[in-house]
């Protein structure tokens, strides 16, 4: 099977949707002439002309441009360069886009996508490394997509652009250079998790870069005779709770790994959902997340801050008493 790089997968999804649907537009800071600060959109403007354009550094105007055009016939894809800038667009996302369909009583839809580079581990410090998913987790009407694998990134972005609801599409900056199977290249439905490794002793549910950490931990734990199932959630809102419940009914244990501060994160939400539905099947349920302090800059501090494969494996051994 052919391989694709994560950033190329994002490019292909944008390129194909721009070609397929004249209502699709893509804009953001430095995305056209410069091709994006993570080199995702290089060449896109040349291929699609005025529908791919650079903007001023004006996040409030940008979310307005996305929302206002989305309810008037376009399907905008807005890039907010870093997830740490998303607080600037929260009014538009929360008070306008996510409420439009409901408050209008179904008069119209708001099909917009916000792409944003998120996550840590690249020495960018406290304000260019954050994971914004929890900030948006309790906003009804908003979808949050968080791919881990390159093939999924393309298929999920295709679906996000075709979706009639506002979608936050999170791209972990550590994954841009990752290569993986291209898959079919077709749209992948939102809200559907994937079992990326089958196992019988424990279910690890996670997303984005942490999927790769969980897979590495599972390899390590296999050597100790612990057979882990790894679920890539792929969409963080809405969660595919049934997929996780189905898995823990077999394994009896759930570990949720989240790259975001422990307090108020989505891991706690998923733990609650699964516990409410499957308490009788559970021998153990817990979560690993980052500490409740800002992300440090210094390499040894930052390395210790994030939940990596070794931390996952150590935690599993400890909980299972191995």
């Amino acid at each position, binding site marked *: 099977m052919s391989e694709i790089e994560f950033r190329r997968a994002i490019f292909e999804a944008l390129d194909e949707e721009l070609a397929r649907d004249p209502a699709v*537009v893509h804009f953001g800071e430095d995305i056209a002439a410069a091709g994006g600060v993570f080199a995702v959109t290089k060449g896109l403007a040349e291929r699609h002309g*005025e*529908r791919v354009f650079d*903007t*001023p550094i*004006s*996040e*409030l*105007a*940008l*979310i*307005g*441009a*996305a*929302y*206002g*055009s*989305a*309810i*008037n*016939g*376009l399907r905008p894809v807005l890039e907010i360069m870093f997830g740490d800038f998303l607080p600037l667009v929260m*009014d*538009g996302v929360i*008070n*306008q886009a996510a*409420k*439009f*369909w*409901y*408050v*209008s*009583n*179904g*008069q*119209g*839809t*708001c099909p917009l996508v916000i792409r944003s580079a998120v996550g840590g581990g690249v020495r960018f410090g406290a304000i260019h490394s954050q994971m914004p998913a929890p900030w948006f987790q309790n906003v*009804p*009407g908003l*979808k949050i997509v968080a791919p881990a694998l390159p093939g999924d990134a393309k298929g999920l972005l295709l679906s996000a652009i075709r*979706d*009639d*609801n506002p979608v936050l599409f999170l791209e972990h900056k550590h994954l841009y250079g990752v290569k993986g199977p291209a898959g079919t290249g077709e749209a992948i*439905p*939102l*809200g*559907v998790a994937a079992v990326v490794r089958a196992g019988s002793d424990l279910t690890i549910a996670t997303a984005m870069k942490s999927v790769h950490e969980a897979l590495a931990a599972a390899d390590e734990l296999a050597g100790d005779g612990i057979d882990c199932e790894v679920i890539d959630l792929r969409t963080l809102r*809405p969660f595919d709770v049934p997929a996780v419940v189905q898995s823990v009914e077999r394994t009896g244990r759930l570990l949720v790994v989240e790259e975001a501060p422990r307090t108020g994160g989505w891991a706690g939400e998923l733990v609650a959902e699964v516990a409410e539905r499957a308490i009788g099947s559970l021998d153990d349920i817990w979560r690993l997340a980052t500490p409740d302090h800002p992300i440090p800059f210094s390499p040894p501090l930052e390395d210790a801050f994030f939940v990596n494969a070794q931390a996952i494996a150590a935690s599993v051994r400890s909980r299972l008493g191995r």
Partner: protein
Amino acid sequence: MTDGLDLYRGMRLIRRFEDAVQALFQKGEVHGTTHLYSGQEASAVGVCSSLAAGDRVAATYRGHGHALALGVSPQGFMDELLGRATGVCGGRAGSMNVIDLEHGLMGCYGIVGGTMAAATGAALAFSLRRQPNVAVAFFGDGTSNQAYFAECLNFAAIRSLPVVFCCENNLYMEYTPTETVTAGAIADRPRALGIATEIVDGNDVFAVRQAAASALELARSGSGPVFLEILTYRIVGHSRSDPGAYRKPGELDEWKKRDPLLLARRALVDEHGFDEAEVDRIDAEVERQMETIVENALAAPWPDPSLPVEQFAGGAR
């Protein structure tokens, strides 16, 4: 064809509608809060009467006037304010958030400055789709100090978007005199960006209409955004709980002498050749219309809380 009497009728309907809302509020029939448009009617009617089919308006949380001026059903709007199932948004929106796409109302926005962003986006869609429409943002003087103001004016200007920014300057941002918290003149800000800007007497519906028609034509021609500063005055409190203690002594009385309805009546009789009796007849017709609207609204059914509600358009996922 809109004539002077239609403009007067439009303003009269808004005034009596707001009076009725206030009365219903005091009786406990309108819930939450309301921000009445009384005193500013010439702005909404003057601008909205100049729009073309397909144009879009983003209105504020003080939006009853904008909605009615756009032709939103006063019955459906009153039903909405009372939270009834027959409201234009089925009771989901209430006073501050009404949407009526059929009449060009893309939304009423509860956050100051949100209208500028929404209208800028609508204009982006018109521009890229080569659609000959204009988006209008209504907002108050207080918005001039919001980040949205600077960002949206610049964004619209650099892309030559077909948008008319209508700043209804009623002198107060909520309870605070705007001049005490604002550096320089509001109109100088769009001018600094090279945006065509006009200041208009916002209590003279004929003046507003003329200024709006020119602004819309200019914006529609593709030459970029236009800024109208519409000078007016709110003759009621900011919201239901505001006694207006911040007003300067005598200020309210002075503005009431320039009530847009009085000015329009005078102009219709003195300059447009209508009889007082014709104007009186409109008053009486609007009076009866409002009585029926209130009666119907009070009898309208409540929404059913047991009905299932989807979170997303197109299904659960």
